[in-house]
C-alpha cells in the first residue's frame, strides 16, 4: 500500500480549473519528486493535499484513510508537514519561537533539536533573532526544520532550492538525504540535477495532468522525454 494516493484530482481556484486530472502514488520511504514546468500545477497539487484548496472532485488517501475535504489542521495532525514555496516563516517571531510553535506540546525534544542544529548550524547561532532578518537560505532551513521538529510521516516540500546559492543547495540536499531515511518526502523541484540526485520515484505534471510517472533512474536516462515534458520551448 502506498503512503499517499491521489486519484483524479481536479482542483479549481475560484472559477479557474487548474488541475484537470492528477493521479499518482507516493510509496513509503525515500524522496518522491514531482517535476513540471512553471505554472503546471505542482504547488496547487501540494496545497490540495494539505486541504488548502479543495481537491474536488478527486480523492486524497493517506495511509488508507480518505483525507479529502478534511480541515488543514487535522490533515497536519495526521503527520503531514508542509514547507510552502514562500517558506511560510513567521518574521516577527524568533527562530526558536518558529520552531517551538510547530511542536505538539510547546516543548522541544532535546534530541530532535540537537539533530536539527547539527543539520542547520545557523538555526542554533541565530536562535533568538527575529526570523525576518535571516537570509533566504536560512529561512528555507528554518522552514524545513519546522517540518521535522516533530516526527512526521510525510513532508511536502515546494521548490526549496529556488534562489539559493549552490553551497546552500548542497547542504539542503544533504539534509534531505538524512531526513528521508526516517520520513517520506514529496519534493517539488525545478532544479533537475538536485531532484535527480535525491529522487527514487517521480512524476511529471504538465498543464494540470500527470504526464509521466515512473522511476527517477528511467526518467533521467530518457533525454527525449525530459525535453518534451520539462523544456521551456513549447
Amino acid at each position, binding site marked *: 500500500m502506498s503512503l499517499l494516493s491521489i486519484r483524479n484530482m481536479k482542483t479549481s481556484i475560484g472559477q479557474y480549473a487548474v488541475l484537470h486530472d492528477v493521479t499518482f502514488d507516493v510509496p513509503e520511504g525515500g524522496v518522491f519528486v514531482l517535476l513540471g514546468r512553471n505554472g503546471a500545477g505542482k504547488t496547487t497539487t501540494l496545497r490540495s493535499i*494539505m486541504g*488548502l484548496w479543495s481537491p474536488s472532485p478527486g480523492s486524497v488517501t493517506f495511509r488508507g484513510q480518505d483525507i479529502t475535504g478534511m*480541515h*488543514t*489542521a487535522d490533515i*497536519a*495532525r495526521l503527520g503531514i*508537514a*508542509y514547507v*510552502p514555496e514562500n517558506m*511560510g516563516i*513567521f*518574521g*516577527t*517571531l524568533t527562530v526558536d*519561537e518558529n520552531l*517551538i*510553535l*510547530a511542536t*505538539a506540546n*510547546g516543548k522541544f525534544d532535546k534530541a530532535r533539536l540537537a539533530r536539527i542544529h547539527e543539520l542547520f548550524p545557523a538555526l542554533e547561532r541565530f536562535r533568538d533573532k*527575529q526570523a*525576518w532578518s535571516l537570509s533566504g537560505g536560512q529561512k528555507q532551513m528554518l522552514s524545513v526544520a*519546522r517540518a521535522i521538529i516533530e516526527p512526521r510521516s510525510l513532508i511536502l516540500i515546494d521548490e526549496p532550492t529556488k534562489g539559493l546559492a549552490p553551497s546552500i543547495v548542497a547542504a539542503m540536499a544533504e539534509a534531505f538525504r538524512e531526513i528521508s531515511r526516517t520520513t517520506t518526502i514529496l519534493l517539488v523541484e525545478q532544479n533537475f540535477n538536485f531532484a535527480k540526485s535525491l529522487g527514487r520515484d517521480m512524476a511529471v505534471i504538465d498543464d494540470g495532468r500527470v504526464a509521466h510517472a515512473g522511476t527517477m533512474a528511467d526518467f533521467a536516462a530518457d533525454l527525449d522525454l525530459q525535453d518534451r515534458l520539462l523544456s521551456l520551448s513549447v
Partner: protein
Amino acid sequence: MTALTQTLGRAGGVNLLPVFIAVIAFVLIGAPSSWITLTVAGLAMGMMLFLMASGLSLVFGLMDVLNFGHSAFVSFGAFISATVLAGLGGWLTADSWALNSMALIAAYLAAITFGLIAGWFFETVIIKPVYRDHLRQILITIGAMIVAEQTILAFWGGTPFSVARPAFLEGSWIIGDVSIEIYRAFAFALGAAVFVMLYLVLNRTRIGLLIRAGVEDREMVEALGFRVDRLFIGVFMLGSALAALGGAMWAGYETLITPHMGADLMIVVFIVVIIGGLGSIEGTLLGAVLVGLMSNYVGFLAPKLALASNMILMVAILLWRPNGLRPAVK
C-alpha cells in the same frame, strides 16, 4: 541624517512620536499647568481608545474580518455598566471605599460578561458565515450595529443617560496650580494594566504565540496543525469584552451617554487601528495614545479642528508608513 535616524531608532523609534507631539504641544500651549491637565486627559482617553481598538485590530489581523459592529460592544458596555451603577447607587455614595469599589467592579464585570457572551454569539451567528468575504462583512456588521443601536434606544430611550461615579473617583488632585481629575488617572492606570496583561499573554504564552503567528500567516499556522478558527472565537470574545470595558470606562468619563456613542467613537477607533498598524497591540496602543493626546491638545488650541486633526494625523502617518506605525507583519 542616517546617524540621527539610528540614534532615534535605538531610543525607541516611532514610540517617541507621542513624546514629540507632547513637546510641540508644550511649546504651543505655553501654560505648563494646562499642558499637564491636557496630557493626563489625553493619556486617559488613549487608554480607553486602546481597550476599544485592540480587539478590532487583533480580529482583523487574525482572520481578515472587518467588524463595523464593534461599536455595539462599546455602547452596550457603557449602558449596562451605567445601569448597574444606577442600581447600586447606595453603595456608590456610601462613605466606604470598599462599597464604592465593589459597585464599580460589579458594573465592569457586567459589561465584560456581556461582551464575552455577545461576542461569542456575534462571531458564531453573524461573522462565521461571511469569513473571507469583505463586502458581506461590511454590510452585515453595519446592519448589526444599527440593530444594536436601536435595541439600546428601545431599552434605555433616546435621552442622554447620566452615569453615576463612585465617590472615591470624584474630584481632582490639586498639586500647586495643576489639577488632575482622579477619574482620568484611574482610567489611565486601568487601561495600562490591561495592556500589560494582554502584552504578557501575547508574548509569554503558547496561545499568544499562536495568535501572533496567526496574525502573520493564518494558513501556515493551520498547516502546522492548529485550528485558527477556534482560536479566533476566543480572540473575538476577548476583543468584545475589552470593547465593553472600554465603553464602561468611557461612560464614567463622559458622565452622559447616548445610544449612538459607540458609532461616534468608532471613527476615532478606526483611525487608531489604522495608524497603529493592523494586528499588533503595541501598534494599537501607540495609535491610541497619539489620537488621545492629539484630540486633547487640538481640542484646547483649536477646538474646531479636533476631529479633523485626527484625520490629518492618519493621512500624514499613512503617507509616511502605508501599513501603519507598527504593523504586525514584517
